[in-house]
């Protein structure tokens, strides 16, 4: 940390003041508004908005699909990160760059394409639909698009850790008599846990809030393919601001507590490092 005495370098009060002001207007004020609005509801009203059958179905769907997508991302992202750091092959740089595309591509575009790929006459749907696999306007579609959105997070958190892995530890393991698979499970995997957890959390957090891509592919049928953010928008379009806010508070609370849990998990899994 390059922390310098604030009397030596100029601009401390100016920049800090501006930062606090900007964050205050853009972040603290709006968040406060949400909580004020939510607290203006009575407990009965709040529960009435938050704990309806439709809302519960939406939470369950949001978390179920986000969880599945994040798990899939850990596996696929871990695989891609492994291949990108361990092997050399033609087109490696292009593959590496392509992984970032979901970060740069507008989510609406992602949703649009996925919806059209997996319909009956889409490029992929035409092979899958005859097999009974429907990717568009189903829960599977939501999971697919969330995998797309979350993939870079896992790859980009695992990749640097894999690159920094001490090759000597692997050599030590193999000279101590371990097979390649034993080395992988006993030595490599445990050092990757923190990165995998972080990647999982980033992908999961992103998926829970995701709206732009899901709205295209889900079909937004209440109880079936309606995720929580879509439910908020539905309430807003009915001008039911109170109810929308209540659901938003639940979503916020869950996001924040998940961040907390993940931070704890991460520091737990790093407990042996210096």
């Amino acid at each position, binding site marked *: 940390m*390059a*922390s*310098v005495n*604030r009397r*030596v*370098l*100029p*601009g*401390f009060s100016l*920049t*800090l003041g*501006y*930062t606090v002001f*900007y*964050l205050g207007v*853009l972040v603290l004020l*709006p968040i406060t*508004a*949400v909580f004020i*609005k939510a607290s203006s509801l009575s407990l009965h009203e709040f529960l009435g908005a938050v704990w309806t059958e439709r809302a519960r179905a939406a939470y369950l769907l949001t978390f179920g699909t986000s969880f599945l997508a994040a798990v899939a991302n850990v596996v*696929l992202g871990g*695989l891609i990160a492994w*291949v990108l750091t*361990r*092997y050399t092959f033609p087109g490696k740089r292009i*593959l590496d*760059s*392509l*992984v970032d*595309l979901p*970060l*740069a*591509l*507008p989510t*609406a*575009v992602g949703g649009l*394409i996925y919806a*059209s790929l997996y319909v009956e006459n889409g490029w992929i749907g035409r092979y899958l639909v005859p097999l009974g696999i429907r990717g568009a306007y189903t829960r599977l579609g939501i999971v697919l698009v969330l*995998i*797309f959105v979350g993939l*870079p997070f896992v790859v980009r958190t695992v*990749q*640097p850790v894999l690159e920094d892995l001490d*090759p000597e530890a692997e050599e030590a393991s193999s000279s101590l008599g371990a097979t390649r698979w034993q080395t992988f499970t006993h030595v490599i995997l445990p050092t990757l846990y923190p990165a995998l957890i972080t990647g999982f959390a980033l992908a999961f957090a992103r998926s829970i*809030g*995701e*709206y*732009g891509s899901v*709205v*295209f592919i889900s079909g937004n049928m209440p109880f079936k393919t309606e995720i929580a*953010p879509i439910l*908020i*928008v539905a309430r*807003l379009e009915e001008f039911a*601001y109170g109810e*929308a*806010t209540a659901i938003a508070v639940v*979503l916020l609370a869950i*996001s924040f507590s*998940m961040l907390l849990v993940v931070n704890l998990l991460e520091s737990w899994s790093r407990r042996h490092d210096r």
Partner: protein
Amino acid sequence: MTVETAEVRDAPRTRAATMKIRRAQQDPAWLRWSLTGLAAFVVGVLIVIPVLNVFAGALAEGAGVYWKNLVDDPDTLHAVGLTLTVVPIAVTANVIFGVAAAWAIARFSFPGRTFLTALIDLPFSVSPVVAGLMFVLIFGLQGYFGAFLRRDGYAIMPYLVAAVLVLLLAVAYFVFRPSHPRARRGLWKTPPLALAVAGATVFALLVLGQQAFEVWPANKSLKIIFATPGLVLATAFVTFPFVARELIPVMNAVGADEELAALSLGASGWQMFWHVTVPNVKWGLVYGIILCNARAMGEFGAVYVVSGHIAGETDTMPLRIEKLFQEYNMPGSFAVASVLTLLAILTLIVKRKLEDRIPQSEEGRRTGAHP
């Protein structure tokens, strides 16, 4: 002694060569190639096919139709224009914020610094829809400030505008004030007096102007939500972390030594910033800007909530895609999507080019995992 020097030079070469060969030996070829193939397949299905599909969909009815879809639809054109209005404003605001925040956080230690850093990451864990909702709650018709602003036909606006102007003046005052006390003359010496004079003048001009000449008409149609200001606010909220998060590690990696050197050689704070800080972090800054820009162009959820999606008025490009999609105008929808996809690809290329130029500290190494 001569021997010593010779081997030191050889050592890194040996090590690099060793690593390379060892790495290659680690997994058997069949495993290597099947894993690589699998990874390529995953990226192909998840990313490459979709991208090709955009262009195929956009050009399905020929290049002529594609072009017409883009330029002959007035609503689409308006959406392009609106995006090109909203995004630069939001990005500019975030760049100024990002530089200020990075300077404060990377160069000074102060109580609450960790909290501030955490606060900057907040948009990553807030659903864009919830972000949009926040601004509707504040500035919407029934919102806390919405009603307040609308009272008496926006009679409050001159005061608000004056307050913002005075604030900007104050910032400019401190930025341009000579850093050395001896170089300060006149009003530069007495900040409170200077600001009081400037503030009073601005207030007087605006309020008098409104009273006497109705410079600020009672504008009933002025809106924040369901209008451009709301779009800017929502976009700024969702994208403000990018520049700051990119700059903080770069500034940490570069360190303050050169800046201190510049100051000791007699540079003013402002000169130091332009001559030393900016050149040192410029690639990190550009990197942050293009990520911020890409996200701002593509923002959907937050903008969707605050826009009210009125075609030809508050539809940005991503919103236009959705509207065309709902109208079953697939070629039109894909045409707009293809423009944004090209932009995304361009962003990736620039990003790749920049990555090698950005100084990195060992710990603050880039993960690229910005939501």
